[in-house]
């Protein structure tokens, strides 16, 4: 037995925002995918929710920072309970406001277990490499760098799901933590060692007509660590440069938290209404704001 599943999402410009094709046979599935910023893959924890932010914050770390990425994945069922998933993707982005180019290459491995029909738990190990940025240059709290950064995260995710007739209830949680490191041979910023964390928790319910979700998330962010500087403070008569090498503690100070409530109601095959309420505490990219909130009422129709 085999099956080929595919999804193609288009953005408002009519361009593919996400394309996913999976070939599955027996206990193995292979997939290839393309996604753009803000689009999560169909099997990512926390994906497919009628809310705006969690859909990618809960998915692949750094995926929310690339403009577009391509990758492949393989899922192997060890037995009826245990499975492994290996995913590799490479994406490009740019450090906004700096104009530099950044490539993110990510390798992820997950060991998961489906406990009964309703519980899935998996542990993850994620390695990423940025070519010229540090945590997406700016987006998630990183720096623009010339030498790039190596990122290592490990985490755990839990998904509870319950299907009853046409209703699907789901609760999910992910937590990842790790470190990102950069060393710079030719910069006054000689190194960065940052501790990172990312977490998402949410619940959702939906049927063929309605969907409701509530999610709480903390995007990938810096929780601590330090950076080193190499500052020329003088020279000797023979030209040797003297340096001061202070260490600056990375006190994040600002920790963004998102609360999201979303709901949708499908009026028919071609029309849909929705509401999205977002509250952001300490929005990292809006200096001076302690709170930010948005309410969105939307009606969409296909013609």
């Amino acid at each position: 037995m085999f099956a080929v599943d595919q999804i193609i999402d288009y953005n408002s410009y009519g361009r593919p925002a996400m394309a996913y094709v999976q070939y599955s046979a027996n206990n193995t599935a292979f997939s290839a995918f393309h996604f753009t910023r803000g689009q999560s893959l169909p099997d990512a924890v926390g994906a497919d929710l009628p809310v705006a932010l969690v859909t990618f914050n809960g998915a692949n770390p750094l995926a929310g920072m690339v403009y577009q990425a391509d990758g492949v994945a393989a899922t192997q069922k060890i037995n009826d309970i245990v499975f492994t998933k290996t995913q590799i993707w490479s994406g490009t982005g740019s450090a906004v406001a700096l104009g530099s180019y950044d490539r993110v290459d990510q390798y992820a491995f997950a060991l998961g277990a489906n406990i009964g029909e309703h519980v899935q738990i998996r542990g993850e190990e994620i390695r990423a490499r940025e070519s010229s940025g540090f945590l997406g240059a700016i987006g998630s709290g990183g720096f623009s760098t010339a030498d790039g950064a190596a990122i290592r995260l490990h985490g755990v995710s839990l998904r509870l799901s319950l299907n009853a007739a046409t209703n699907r209830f789901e609760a999910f949680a992910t937590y990842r933590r790790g470190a990102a490191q950069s060393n710079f041979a030719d910069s006054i910023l000689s190194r960065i060692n940052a501790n990172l964390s990312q977490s998402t928790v949410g619940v959702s319910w939906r049927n063929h007509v309605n969907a409701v979700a509530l999610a709480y998330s903390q995007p990938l962010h810096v929780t601590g660590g330090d950076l080193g500087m190499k500052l020329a403070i003088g020279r000797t008569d023979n030209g040797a440069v003297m340096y001061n090498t202070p260490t600056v503690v990375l006190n994040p100070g600002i920790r963004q938290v998102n609360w999201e409530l979303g709901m949708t109601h499908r009026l028919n095959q071609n029309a849909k209404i929705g509401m999205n309420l977002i509250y952001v505490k300490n929005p990292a990219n809006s200096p001076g704001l302690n709170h930010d909130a948005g309410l969105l009422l939307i009606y969409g129709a296909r013609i």
Partner: protein
Amino acid sequence: MTATLDYNGAAAQSVGVAVLDSGINTSHQEFTGNGGKNGVGGPIVSGGIDTTAAMNNAYPTITGTTTPQDSTHYSYVGPSTHGNFVASIVAGANIGYSGNASLYIEKITDTSTASSATVAYGFGDAATKGMSFANLSYGLDPISYYKLLADQVAAEQAAGQTGINNLTDMQYAQFQNVINKGMGLIVAAGNTTLNFSTSNNTTSTWSTSNPLYGQTLIVGALDSTHNNLASYSNFAGDDPNVQKRFITAPGTNTGADPTSNTAYGSFSGTSSAAPVVTAAAATLKSYWSFMTPTQVDQRLLDTADKNFNAMWSIHTCGASGSLNCGNYYFGQGRLDLPAALAPAGVVVTTTAASVPAASTGGAYANRQTAPAQAARLVIPAALAPIQQQVRAESVGIQGFDTIGRNYTLNIAPAISTATDPTQTLGYEMQGFIDGFMNKGQSSFTAFENH
């Protein structure tokens, strides 16, 4: 006028300057105390000698004065007041151009003339005493004179003579000491309205291979407007090698009159201009002690002002025999100390082990340029609280110009925070709108085979 004017120099740096002249009144108020205007550094006058007596003591059989002489007195006796004026212009407590020079007095005469042998000994003694520069406001072309001595010594050596047997040998040895120590010689051009090149026959004596060439500056005098050569001043002339070592400076300055401890007077001539240049050299070196006198001299030449006289727009000298071009009169131009103090090229910080140890200008193969991060360090908005700390740590960071001189940089304005507009709520919500119709969309099975 941007010549020198009251530039104090770096604190706590004393640059040794020898003044070969007619001695000073050590009790004059310009020479008491420490460190000139700011009271920094060592004493204004660190000491001195009666140069002639010291020479006689050093070479009794050559000079014919075998009875030991008292060489400790370098005070003004008269009739010449020249030395007191010159020394005060270099480093006087109130009127000196340099707040950093520490003077060593080589009293070579009491009159308006001095023996060339005494001058040579004075130069050599000053070099031995560790002076960085020696000011000579008496008429002697040291480069030509050294060439003369060197030729004579070479002839002696060709004839099998070795050692110091006569005044020529002694003077040659003194100049060799100057060369070995690298001391800078700053010499007045003279006040006879002569072409320095022809009057000293420099085409046969000056060459870039002459060891003293790079260590010597010849100073012409500007008139009271500072825009024209003084009517009396000798000028560089038509020898390009002279033009490259010739510089001009204000020729009328207030100096200390030794006839009383509080007397002053106007002092004019290339004798007055030379100490202005010497003071500038001392000031420059006070900031960068690693600069050799040769490098300091070259920096003064390289940065001399050439935009003050119409002669600089005349370029027809030479073939026609005309001499009214800028460099024929002013050499490299008018002393411009602020320009000499200003960075050569772009100042960049570095992370390299070393910067150019020394050079006289130009580009360097091993020059380190600042990486982009040094020029612009962007801290993400989410980490904005550390911005001030990073800025504070950067205070005092040093940058280096193309000749390795360090300057304090203020990079705080370049340490900024940046936001990512694609991470704002409004942008996210727009993305939500774009994908709204696809939210919750299920995959479909394209093929299935059981």
